[in-house]
């Protein structure tokens, strides 16, 4: 194991999601061959590729695993197979029938149809992809192969339901491996800054940057939002239709990933929505419901202030969110009743119209009474969904990772899952479907190097050098 794992002087791309790897990847080049002997070229290619492809496997071990027969597939067209029996390839004199250039021309792409070459050389390291630790990393359950290896050694990984402690276990096609979800969240989530607080370095940096650069922008945006809100409130007295649109905007804002990660912002959204419900349904809801909604808003505000001070314990926080949930569920059950009863008094065909309200996506065409009820119910639903999200991803300082959970930085640049794995992220399990293969134009072993480099490395391991 080299001492300078993430050095910048001799940049090596490693199997991890670190910033050094990303930087080295961005300036990775194929080494120029003009002034090197063939041996030197091969040596360099070998050392570059082995630094990426599991340097924890010793060189001797790897040379025994190396196989010069590289697997490939060709995808067949069943319609072609049904139409021809293969004799058409031999038809014509000599070497087959001449195809007209027009037949080979692909109109969609505007160029001649040519069959891609199969990139065999990129499959040089395919035996290493069978290893359990590599497969765990490829399934995005760990941030590096080293970490995946540690997960295995520490006993957090099961293969086909049995504990497997060997990172070098060669997966067989059809094997299912499971990693403990808590460990996965820890391995791939943002790191905590301190043991006692749920805040991560990433959050702090994001805040600082926002302060430095976008303070003016943020301010102006806030002002705009305030103005919009006031406008909406003015409009509400005239027609309730406009509120829905603004609510939908709010909803869109709420579903943005960065917002939903932030429990505080989610709470803010909740508060705004509760306010909306209150204002919209003032006319139609009964007094008791109104009181309940108001109480709910207050409790929400309390939790918000708690979040602001950041002094609460985890249990209190969880408890408060759960309380809110229960309260909202109660209100939810009562609101439809209310709206139904008011409808009954106001109009004769109560049930038919209720159905119509349920179905209609946009209440613009309907009279304002129905609109209000519709908005109230829809808001309650939105509120419920937002609370659900907050509950699924709570703030909890007892967890080993920063909460609410957030992927660690630079993960997205490395996030891909090769086709030989089928992953279910919810249960942090994956199935190793088959061995990786090359197909025309595509190699399934992910490797950052150019085919030239890979060919040189393949040649190195052919023994006759």
């Amino acid at each position, binding site marked *: 194991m080299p001492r300078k794992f993430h050095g*910048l002087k001799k940049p090596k791309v490693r199997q991890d999601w670190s*910033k050094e790897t*990303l*930087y080295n*990847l*961005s300036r990775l*080049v194929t080494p120029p061959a003009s002034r090197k002997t063939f041996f030197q070229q091969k040596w360099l290619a070998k050392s570059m590729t082995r630094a990426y492809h599991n340097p924890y496997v010793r060189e001797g071990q790897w040379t025994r695993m190396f196989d010069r027969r590289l*697997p490939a*597939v060709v*995808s*067949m067209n*069943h319609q072609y*197979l*049904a139409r021809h*029996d*293969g*004799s058409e390839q031999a038809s014509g004199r000599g070497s087959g029938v001449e195809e007209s250039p027009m037949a080979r021309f692909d109109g969609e792409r505007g160029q001649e149809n040519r069959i891609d070459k199969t990139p065999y050389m990129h499959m040089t390291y395919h035996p290493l992809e069978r290893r359990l630790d590599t497969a765990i990393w490829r399934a*995005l359950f760990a941030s590096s192969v080293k970490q995946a290896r540690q997960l295995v050694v520490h006993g957090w990984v099961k*293969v086909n339901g*049995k504990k*497997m402690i*060997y990172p070098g*276990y060669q997966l*067989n096609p059809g094997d*299912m491996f499971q990693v403990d*979800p*808590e460990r996965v*969240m820890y391995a*791939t989530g943002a790191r905590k800054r301190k043991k006692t607080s749920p805040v991560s370095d990433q959050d702090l940096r994001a805040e600082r940057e926002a302060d430095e650069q976008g303070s003016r922008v943020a301010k102006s945006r806030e002002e705009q939002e305030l103005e919009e809100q006031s406008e909406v409130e003015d409009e509400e007295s005239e027609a309730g239709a406009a509120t829905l649109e603004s609510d939908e905007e709010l909803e869109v804002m709420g579903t943005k*990933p*960065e917002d939903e990660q932030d429990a505080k912002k989610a709470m803010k959204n909740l508060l705004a929505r509760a306010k909306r419900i209150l204002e919209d349904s003032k006319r139609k809801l009964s007094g008791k419901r109104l009181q309940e909604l108001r109480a709910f808003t207050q409790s929400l505000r309390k939790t918000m202030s708690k979040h602001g001070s950041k002094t609460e314990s985890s249990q209190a926080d969880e408890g408060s969110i759960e309380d809110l949930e229960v309260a909202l569920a109660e209100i939810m059950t009562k609101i439809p009743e209310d709206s139904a009863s008011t409808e009954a008094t106001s109009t004769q065909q109560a049930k038919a119209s209720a159905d119509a309200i349920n179905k209609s*996506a*946009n209440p*613009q065409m309907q009279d304002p009474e129905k609109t209000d009820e519709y908005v109230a119910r829809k808001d309650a639903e939105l509120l419920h969904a937002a609370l659900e999200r907050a509950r*699924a991803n709570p703030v909890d300082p007892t967890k080993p990772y920063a909460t*609410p*959970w*957030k*992927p660690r*930085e*630079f*993960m*997205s*640049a490395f*996030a*891909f*899952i*090769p*086709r030989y794995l089928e992953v*279910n992220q919810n*249960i942090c399990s994956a199935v190793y*479907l*088959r061995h990786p293969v090359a197909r025309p134009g595509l*190699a399934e*072993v*992910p*490797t*950052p*190097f150019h*085919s030239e480099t890979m060919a040189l490395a393949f040649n190195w391991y052919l023994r006759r050098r």
Partner: protein
Amino acid sequence: MPPRISTSRLTQPQTCECFRSRSRKSPSTPAPSTRQFHATARHGTRLRRNMWEWFQGPGRVFREPLPGSTNYLSAYDKQGNLLRARRNQQEDPEDQDELDQDEDAIVQRELDQGLDDVERENRAIDRATKRSAREEIEERGGIPPERQGDMRPYPLNQSFKSQPVLSEDLREQLYVQVVHYRHDVSSVAATFGVDIRRVAAVVRLKTIEKQWEEEGKQLAKPYAKAVLNMLPTTPFKPETSKPITPHEPINDLPVHPRTRQQIFYPTSESRQFTREDAAKVFDSKLLPADQRIPLPMLVDLERWKLQGLGREERQKKQREMDDAARTAIETAARKKAAWEASALRTVPGRRWDFKFEDISAEKVGKDGRGRQAVGYRYGMPHEDRKRGMVKIPTSVE
């Protein structure tokens, strides 16, 4: 005469003060921070500084994922600008207006215009498709969808790209098709354009997920959501004009090692030299491509269609073939059971059953070490119990 050095090449301003008493700090550059190891502190080496510069500039975009899109290196230029964001197309404003309107109102208007049912249905599907497309774009925050070139996480490697994974909806649909509707795995695979093994794996994983949900076990929901947002996914849109997007090629033919050689095989010009004959030339036991693909059923179906058989006839034929396959499997199982009953003698023990079977001593071959023979390793010591020998299992049942 001493060599003349221009003042600009000197790092220190020239003073007459002794270098011992002189302060080390030059007035132009501030003192380096004491905590150089910290991530936010100033960095000593030029290489580190360059790295941090890159992360302040072009590398900044990789810190956080792009909402609803992949975020790979090849999607950006050297300055860190998103390549596909340059061209932005505008949609037809009239269409937008129509999409915003209420569905009932549009239907009413179409009725007034006197369109027939088929036309209206087509239009409704068209609208649904457009709406879902617009929702997608809005989800991505107005960025156009990724192109093929944007899907390469490794800029140097032209032949690797990040391929889509199954979306949650599609997984659920596959599970429903197999478990609730009891459809055949291979026919589900053919319909949805998903590999057979993948369908089986999805069902297996989904079953565990449902079980966990029932047990009340904590699922990694936030993780799943974040990861699926970063990855390209194959969608399933049941309401639109094109509900199914084929996920992957389903009829992959493995390249057989025997077919890697080039063979010069002279044959008469008048001969109908088919795939089957070609396979025979490569290896006497090699089957032709139509039988080696995972779903040979599709080829048969297509062949019957070309022969001009009707739908009922085709279905009947397929049913017959399925029945034949099932009976073959059953017969084989029965045969095996009969053989076991006759040839194996089972002695139940306290923890294990002991099974006795007659063997042939001839299998060992000339050197006594035939691979299929009993006692294959006889006379060779097992080394796996030695100190330092790690015995990794080769398979887990």
